[in-house]
Every structure is written in structure tokens, then in C-alpha cells.
């Protein structure tokens, strides 16, 4: 029941908000706040319901072979917590900025959240595609919401490339259906190994390329810098922090269930694309003048980090990838929010013009410093611990090149984040008026504090043991199949 609620509740808010706007306009502010709070709670409750064991919901009572199944296991639970936290933070930032004024924004926002939860709990390939498309449509709308020409252009390019990716996923799903006659992930995990090998190649290639486009991995990442830099602040934080991670979840789930025995080369492919993303993202970020575009390319690089973790195909790798996904949400979310507020103050996004901000908004700049240090990988913050666990997992799986790419990435990212920091701390003429940014400031500081806390707690063995159960659970396909295929 809980997984279904996680999908239905935000979706219903999406439909109720226009009714509230039409009939009870005065209540709109509080209504939206209440809706967001309830969605947050429901998502967290779903996550906790799946933590101890498998929470399987059979829609309509039909068993797995006939109907749609929603499954929450530890991997889904971790990503549900991530989605809830990230969406909640983005909601607070946007609510703090413009209350409930563009109510259409919140409609799309809740649809996005509903679709994200859908992807995270679905146990069925076609449902995955449907939720993926709702999710992508909402994302395209959110990117182009501000209606500036950059946003529209970025939204259109995101749409075209994202739809190409979606059609590849649909093509892969079609081939899966043609080869096995089933679409339930657990059943497929059992029956795909019997499919002819050429079909498996095509299925793997289609699914992987579709998911890579959606994730934003180099070299099919071209929509990402445009979209993440042209969107408004809260949407950028949401996109970089949560949307990308949900796509990575889909990739992890599909690869672990389908390709572990049938096409282990898929994991090598994922690792290679990860290494390419690390290098490509960092190298492109070196030459950016626009701070939000730089942060977007940094996201491409961090996606590469997470992909190298997923590509190991081991429990340690998946755990490290999930841990880094959490880290990146906190770090990049905070960075985008800060960058957004600072560039709004100075009316420019050019790094060399963002000067003298330390005197003007010391809290934001200090938080930015902590977050930048975390994302570069300075100990003892969480980025360093994430990097260490990723290195440990990569070396364990024999991928030395990923470990070297991780080390090289630290050096290059230190260079360009130092450039931003030296600009922020340098003396300059600060802007005259100062609008208080209540919620963005608190969210950023909370994220910075989380970075420090996550870094310190990752040192402690008991906390890490709890985290590593995520990885072992993700790899435990037999238990997954057994939980779903109960008669």
C-alpha cells in the first residue's frame, strides 16, 4: 500500500492545486505547504517500510505475471530518502522566494515528485517507461518555466535529446517484450538469460544508451549544461541533485537485474562512460565563465564518479555510488542555491564579476567554501569519504583507471573551484541593497552541516556497515525475485 501512496499522493496534489486556486484562492499558500509536507512524509514512510525487508505491493491483487508490481527494497529506500530530501529542500527554496504565486509551477513540481517516486518503486519495465516520461515532461517544463530565451532553448534541446533517449528505452522494452513476453523486472531477471544473444545485445545497447542520455553522461550529456544553467535556482538544485540520481537508480536497477550474468560487459561500458564523464566534465568546467554552467559541468563529472561506482557491479561499488549520490545532492544542491542567490544579488553570473561577496553575505560565502571543499574532495568532508570508498571499490573490482581518474579529478576540480573562491573572497564593490534570503540561506547552511556530518560519520564503522547493507541488498537479485514472485 505504501508504495502506491508514494505515487498517488503527490499526483493528486498536482490535480487538486488548480481546484484550490479556482475555488479557495486564499488558502493556496498554506495548502501548498501542507501538500509538500504530506508528500515528504509519505515518501519517507515508504522508504522506511522498505528498509527492513521487501515491501511489495501488487496492484489490484494480480500476481507478478499478470499485473503491475511496486517493490521497495533497500536501494529504492535509499533513493526515496534522497528524493524526499532533495525535493523538500528545493520546495523550501522556491516557496521562500515566491510563495504560491505561480501555482502552475507547483503542479508540475508535484507531478515530478510523483513520477520520481514512481520510478523508484516500480517493478515493471513499461511502468518504468511511463513514469520516466511523466518525469521527463515535468522536467522539461520546469527547465523552461522562466520563459527566458535561454530557458526555452535549453528546454527544447533537453526535450529533443531526452525524447530520443526515451524512444531508445521504449525500443529496448519492446525488444524485451518480443524476446520474453514478460515485462515484470523480476520475471525478466529469470527469463532474459534464455533469450538469444543477439537480442540481448540490442536490448542492452538500447536500454543503456537511453538511460545514459537521461542521466547526462558524457558524451551524450550535451543537454545538461544548458538545462541546469538556464533553469531557476531551485529547479537547478532539484535537477542536479535529484533528477540525475533517479536516472542513475534506474540504470543500476536495470543493469543489476538484467545484465549481471547475461552481459557483464555492460558494467565495463558503464565504468568507461563514467571515466569519460569524469574527464570530460572536469575539463569543460575548467574554461567556463558562467558559474551555473561550471556547476553543471561539475555535475557531469560527479555523475561519472557515481557511474564508476555502479560499473563495478559489486556490493561495495553500489554502496559507494549510493553514498556519493547522497553527497552530491547535498553538495551540488547547496552550491546551486548559493550561486543562484549570489548571482541574483550581483545581477551577473560571470565568475570574474562575482567579487567582494565575502563582506556582503559572509554566511553564504562560508557555506559555499565548505561545499566547494567537499565537492573537490578535501578531508574530512563527505566528498573525500565518497571518493575514498569509490576508490576502494574500483580497485577491488580491478578498475585502476577509474581510481586514477578520481585522483586526477580532484586536482582539476580544485583548480576551478579555487578560481571561484578567489573571486568571491577578493575585494570588490558589493551591491547596495540586500534582500534577505531566508529559506535559501537556511537550506544551504543545513546542507553544509550535513556535508561535515556525513564526512565524519562515514569514518565510523557502525554507520558504514548500515550503509553497506544497501549494496548487498541491491546485488541480491534472488531475494528480490523471491519477494516478487510469491504466488
Amino acid at each position, binding site marked *: 500500500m505504501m508504495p502506491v501512496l508514494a505515487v498517488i499522493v503527490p499526483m493528486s496534489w498536482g490535480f487538486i492545486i488548480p481546484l484550490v486556486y479556482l475555488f479557495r484562492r486564499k488558502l493556496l499558500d498554506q495548502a501548498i505547504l501542507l501538500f509538500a509536507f504530506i508528500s515528504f512524509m509519505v515518501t519517507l514512510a515508504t522508504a522506511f517500510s522498505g528498509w527492513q525487508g521487501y515491501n511489495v505491493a501488487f496492484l489490484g491483487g494480480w500476481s507478478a505475471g499478470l499485473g503491475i508490481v511496486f517493490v521497495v527494497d533497500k536501494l529504492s529506500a535509499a533513493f526515496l530518502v534522497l528524493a524526499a530530501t532533495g525535493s523538500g529542500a528545493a520546495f523550501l527554496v522556491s516557496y521562500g522566494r515566491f510563495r504560491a504565486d505561480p501555482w502552475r509551477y507547483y503542479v508540475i513540481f508535484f507531478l515530478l515528485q510523483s513520477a520520481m517516486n514512481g520510478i523508484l518503486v516500480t517493478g515493471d519495465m513499461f511502468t518504468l517507461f*511511463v513514469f520516466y516520461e511523466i518525469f521527463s515532461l515535468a522536467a522539461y517544463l520546469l527547465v523552461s518555466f522562466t520563459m527566458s530565451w*535561454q530557458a526555452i*532553448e535549453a528546454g527544447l534541446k533537453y526535450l*529533443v535529446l531526452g525524447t530520443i533517449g526515451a524512444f531508445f528505452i521504449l525500443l529496448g522494452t519492446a525488444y524485451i517484450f518480443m524476446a520474453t513476453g514478460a515485462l515484470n523486472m523480476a520475471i525478466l531477471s529469470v527469463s532474459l538469460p534464455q533469450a538469444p544473444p543477439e537480442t540481448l545485445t540490442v536490448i542492452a545497447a538500447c536500454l543503456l544508451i537511453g538511460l545514459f542520455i537521461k542521466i547526462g553522461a558524457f558524451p551524450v550529456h550535451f543537454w545538461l549544461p544548458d538545462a541546469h544553467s538556464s533553469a531557476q535556482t531551485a529547479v537547478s538544485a532539484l535537477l542536479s541533485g535529484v533528477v540525475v540520481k533517479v536516472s542513475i537508480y534506474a540504470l543500476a536497477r536495470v543493469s543489476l537485474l538484467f545484465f549481471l550474468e547475461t552481459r557483464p560487459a555492460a558494467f565495463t561500458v558503464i565504468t568507461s562512460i563514467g571515466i569519460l564523464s569524469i574527464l570530460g566534465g572536469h575539463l569543460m568546467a575548467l574554461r567556463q565563465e558562467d558559474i551555473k554552467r561550471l556547476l553543471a559541468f561539475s555535475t557531469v563529472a560527479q555523475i561519472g564518479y557515481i557511474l564508476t561506482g555502479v560499473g563495478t557491479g559489486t556490493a561495495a561499488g553500489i554502496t559507494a555510488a549510493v553514498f556519493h549520490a547522497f553527497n552530491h545532492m547535498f553538495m551540488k544542491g547547496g552550491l546551486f542555491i548559493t550561486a543562484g542567490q549570489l548571482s541574483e544579488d550581483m545581477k551577473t553570473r560571470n565568475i570574474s564579476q562575482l567579487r567582494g561577496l565575502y563582506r556582503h553575505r559572509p554566511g553564504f560565502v562560508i557555506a559555499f567554501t565548505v561545499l566547494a571543499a567537499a565537492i573537490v574532495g578535501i578531508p574530512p568532508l563527505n566528498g573525500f569519504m565518497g571518493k575514498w570508498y569509490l576508490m576502494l571499490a574500483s580497485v577491488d573490482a580491478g578498475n585502476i583507471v577509474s581510481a586514477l581518474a578520481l585522483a586526477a579529478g580532484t586536482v582539476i576540480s580544485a583548480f576551478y573551484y579555487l578560481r571561484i573562491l578567489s573571486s568571491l573572497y577578493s575585494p570588490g564593490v558589493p551591491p547596495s541593497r540586500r534582500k534577505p534570503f531566508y529559506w535559501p540561506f537556511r537550506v544551504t547552511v543545513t546542507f553544509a552541516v550535513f556535508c561535515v556530518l556525513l564526512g565524519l560519520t562515514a569514518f565510523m564503522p557502525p554507520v558504514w556497515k548500515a550503509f553497506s547493507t544497501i549494496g548487498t541488498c541491491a546485488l541480491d537479485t534472488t531475494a528480490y525475485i523471491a519477494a516478487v514472485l510469491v504466488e
Partner: protein
Amino acid sequence: MIKLSYATAIFIFCIGLYTIISKRNLFKTVIGLAIMESAVLLLIVTSGYIPGGVPPLLPMNGVAVNPLPQAFTLTAIVIGASDVALALALVIKLHRRYGTVDLDKIRGLRG
């Protein structure tokens, strides 16, 4: 050998992809998306065909073709329609700003 319908579907898919890659007019890009969508849907629907089958409607006299792909196709048509609608809306907005739908000119976000 490959069934004719599958080969056609793949061929049309390639045409759609080729349209997106080589045409500079934004409307043609959107049409390319629609072509790709039709191709995949053709593949799905014809995959459920059983030779000598009847439509899956009651009352049935004989073996019905697989209705599951037809259900998927309907869903995917809806999704494709909303994608194309949003794309066209964005194209119109872009045209207002750039005055053209030539992709070579619509390159404001670069680097």
C-alpha cells in the same frame, strides 16, 4: 529471417533519427521525433500479431492477437502526443525570440 514489419519499423526508426541529425529546420526535428515514435509503436503492435488472429474483442471466434502490446501502444501514443505538443509550444516560443527556426542560428547556449 526478420519479419517484414520489424524491418520496416527499424527502417522508419532510422529515418526518424536521420531526420533529427540532418535537418536544420526545427519543425523537421519535431517531425523526426514523431516518426521515431511511430516506428517504435509499429514494432510493438506488430510484435503481438498472431497469424490468423482476430481483434481482441468479445465475442471472439478464434485466437485473438495479443492485446498487451496494443495497450502499451495506446499509452505510448499519449506520451508521444504530449511530447510533440510541448515541443511545438517551445518551438513557437523560440521562434518569437530568434525570428527563425533554423537550428544553425539557434545556438545561443554554447561552450
